[in-house]
């Protein structure tokens, strides 16, 4: 298994390199120099000041030189200095990572714990009212704009019923996490329910399930010994894919609930034209996403012997 993990991580390297290159290219192509975006408030800038700033930021060097410098800095964990806060970007990011992780994991947990069993039960009674209802709910869940859902939930639970706080991280307690996590987790939950349902229906009609029954197994054993793992394999793909979407959507949800994570940092940095911070955020988010994908791949090969012993 260690070998597998290492191999998978090695496969990540070219992708990471490509991502770093893309981010660099994207942000170096900024029309108008980076220096001027620092002072983008409409005031004419003194050309001498601008020239000085440019030298400071190394913007006068040719592009390939800048790229080498950039990669070099990345290797040492230096993501530059935030324009706005004038501290290393890494410092700004560090504070925000914890809340982002908490939110993403909580949302995923919610989606898995509710979505998969829901899909399971819908599949066990196909065509029933419960099944139909679940599927309608699933499609709706996928069509909801998250920020709107967040607002509506906040309205209902925080303002009308006053059960939960409506925004912010507060003391880091669970109460503050619930609304954002549920808001973020609704559409993956819907997707998992649908995928699980389709997977269960497909597996329950498979030949080896018929064999299992012919052996004299009761339905409960058939499901636990034979159906469950096969369904898991099919659902795992969906789970892995959803992480990416989750990371994207977290950006919006963090805004709605003023959740102090990477996402809201990204937005405020964009609004403040704090390019190093934007670059840093995006890099971290994408790297995290790639790491999750690698982890899902490894998990996959652990569960499915066809991949392990191919």
């Amino acid at each position: 298994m260690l070998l597998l993990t290492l191999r998978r991580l090695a496969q990540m390297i070219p992708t990471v390199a490509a991502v770093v290159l893309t981010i660099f290219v994207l942000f170096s192509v900024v029309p108008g120099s980076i220096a001027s975006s620092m002072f983008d408030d409409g005031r004419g800038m003194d050309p001498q000041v601008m020239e000085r700033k440019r030298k400071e930021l190394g913007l006068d060097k040719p592009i390939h030189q800048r790229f080498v410098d950039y990669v070099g800095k990345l290797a040492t964990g230096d993501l530059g200095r935030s324009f706005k806060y004038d501290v290393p970007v890494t410092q700004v990011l560090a504070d925000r990572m914890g809340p982002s992780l908490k939110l993403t994991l909580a949302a995923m947990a919610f989606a898995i714990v509710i979505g998969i069993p829901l899909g399971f039960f819908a599949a066990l009674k196909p065509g029933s009212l419960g099944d139909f209802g679940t599927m309608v709910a699933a499609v709706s869940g996928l069509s909801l704009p998250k920020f709107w859902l967040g607002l509506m939930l906040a309205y209902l639970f925080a303002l009308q019923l006053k059960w939960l706080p409506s925004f912010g991280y507060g003391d880091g307690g669970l109460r503050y996490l619930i609304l954002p996590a549920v808001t973020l987790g609704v559409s993956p939950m819907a997707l998992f329910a649908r995928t699980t349902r389709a997977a269960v229906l497909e597996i329950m009609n498979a030949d080896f399930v018929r064999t299992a029954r012919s052996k004299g197994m009761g339905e409960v054993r058939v499901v636990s010994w034979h159906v469950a793992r096969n369904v898991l394999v099919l659902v795992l793909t969906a789970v892995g894919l959803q992480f990416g979407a989750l990371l994207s959507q977290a950006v919006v949800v963090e805004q709605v609930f003023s959740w102090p994570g990477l996402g809201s940092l990204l937005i405020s940095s964009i609004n403040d034209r704090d390019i190093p911070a934007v670059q840093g955020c995006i890099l971290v988010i994408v790297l995290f996403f790639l790491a999750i994908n690698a982890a899902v791949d490894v998990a996959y090969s652990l569960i499915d012997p066809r991949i392990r012993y191919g």
Partner: protein
Amino acid sequence: MNVGAPLLEVVDLRIDLADAGLRHAAVEGVSFSIPRGETFGLVGESGCGKSITALAVMGLLRPPLAIGAGRILLEGREIQALPQSGLKRLRGRRIAMIFQEPMTALNPLSSVGRQIAEMFVLHEGAGWRQAQDKAVEALRMVRVPSPERRAKDYPHQLSGGMRQRVMIAIALACRPALLVADEPTTALDVTVQSEIIDLMQELCAEKGTAILMISHDLGLVARMCRRVAVMYAGRLVEERAAHDVFRAPSHPYTQGLVASMPRLGARAAHGRNRLQEIKGVVPSIAAYPPGCRFHPRCGSASDVCRKVPPEQTGIEGGGTVCCYHHA
């Protein structure tokens, strides 16, 4: 010789197919019996209903198929109306089944050893460790080389013939009285086919297990079975000793089938001849002709054949046939 009550008795079985509100009788009026330890063949073309008859015996029919009428008796007890809980107790223990496609019939995520071991855990109350050991013995019994290593393999790592051996090991693990084999060799190479058939016959003879062999392969059934039943379009048309069916077929359909078998050495003996065929095609379930279902393709069809379906009548030498113009 086997005496006493037959092991399996199927009486006037009807299987219905529900199709958008309508119900068609996919299989109708099928009756046969299998004594203890006997090898019995059920032969017919694709779509004649032989596989679903086998599934009905096991109680494995799923919607839209269901048993519509008739009785199935196992060791004298009626089982066609048993709830799943009752059927569960019989399956694996008194009756077992092996299927046509060994690749898809085994759980791809579970080692073959474990899938065999399940039988011992389910039916003999064995612990897993003990069951795994017994599974290795079972693999040895079906002549899988290096059974200890093989037991840890997954289905996709084995060849088709090996997988079918695993299926046989599973089916015979708890010494059932009846083994239902649904075209077990159709998906295998010809060379492997006879190995598997020989294995089945040997093991079943040893344990006294009767075999209900479903096949479309006449040659196979002729070699293997003592008695043979021929099905056509959901009905049983002839049921006799294997030897008699092939030497002197009585129903026009069987006659056509036997005549159409190419014989080794026939060309040398009789010169080049066209392969015989039965004209026409098998009717679909929704469009079974009235009267005898074979009449549109039968050379001897007469008026009564077209209107009234024939009954199963006894024939000299033992057995039944379903025809007004049987030989």
